């Protein structure tokens, strides 16, 4: 049975190993090249990108990030976010880094000839999309801790998120946690011991008085 991490438990901070950052290219494509491909409307079609599930996962993440930035702009928060735009750069790095296929996560089947797996990259894509689809939140990083390749081994999910104004953070974190548990149980057979969520970026509404003074 899956054990939930209580909503009031202190969030656990964590850091990814930066040494893998240099592996951030996907099938030979950098995040800049993938972004350019989106700018061109994916024309002319590039089979090296279109035939790569890792590129596809990264492209979907880039599209969601662009929509989030457009939403920020629409809410007049862009100026504020530009002051600390490293959150976007960090997410860009992680989108490509986490889209790599990674480890194989087994799925059961009664046939002895069957070897069914879902890739770690696909699963991170699911978790990222689950978070990005929630209002006022964007997933920055998502890490699966533990041996996902051995069925039945309890694993830990660590997620960090950027939160935009208008949300009760503990409630938002709990909604995210429940949505991720649901996605994990639907698409994998993993035993998830806990999902730890860290709010690593919190964007506040710009101070109106400051903005008026700047005019």
């Amino acid at each position: 049975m899956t054990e939930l991490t209580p909503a009031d438990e202190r969030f656990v901070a964590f850091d990814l190993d930066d040494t893998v950052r240099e592996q951030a290219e996907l099938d030979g494509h950098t995040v800049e090249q993938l972004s350019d491909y989106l700018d061109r409307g994916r024309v002319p079609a590039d089979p090296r990108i279109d035939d790569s599930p890792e590129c596809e996962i990264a492209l979907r993440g880039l599209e969601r990030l662009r929509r989030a930035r457009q939403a920020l702009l629409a809410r007049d928060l862009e100026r504020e976010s530009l002051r600390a735009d490293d959150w976007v750069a960090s997410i860009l790095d992680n989108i490509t880094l986490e889209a790599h296929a990674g480890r194989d996560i087994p799925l059961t089947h009664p046939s002895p000839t069957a070897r069914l797996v879902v890739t770690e990259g696909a699963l991170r894509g699911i978790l990222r999309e689950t978070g990005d689809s929630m209002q006022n939140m964007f997933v920055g990083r998502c890490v699966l801790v533990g041996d996902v390749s051995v069925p039945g081994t309890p694993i830990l999910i660590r997620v960090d998120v950027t939160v935009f104004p208008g949300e009760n953070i503990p409630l938002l974190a709990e909604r995210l946690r429940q949505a991720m548990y649901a996605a994990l149980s639907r698409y994998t057979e993993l035993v998830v011991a806990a999902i730890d969520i860290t709010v690593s970026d919190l964007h506040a509404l710009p101070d109106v008085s400051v903005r008026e003074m700047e005019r």
Partner: protein
Amino acid sequence: MTSVLPSTDQLDALVRQVPGVESLYPAGPLVTAMLTAALDAVAHRAPAAPLVYVGEQGDGVRVTAKIGIGAAESSGHVSGRVHDAIAAHLEQGDYPPVVQIVVIVASVRLSV
């Protein structure tokens, strides 16, 4: 044992028809896939390489399919159906015995 391996074109079409499968990706060795894709890109043509990979293993055959699925069904259900479809197809033909059928869910599209 017969040396005739199953047609990858037929397997490609078969897997694409399995409900829940939205994409089919090249499952062969990386070097082959990248070389073929590079040549296709230079020629501005659709990918020509087979997507489902069929290889000999011992006295039998090993088939690998790499798929993308939609949100409607679980990865276990869809990948299981892909396995079953390939297994049924191979049973019907005069092919070497199946050693393994590998189905990799490489992408899940939650939104449209």
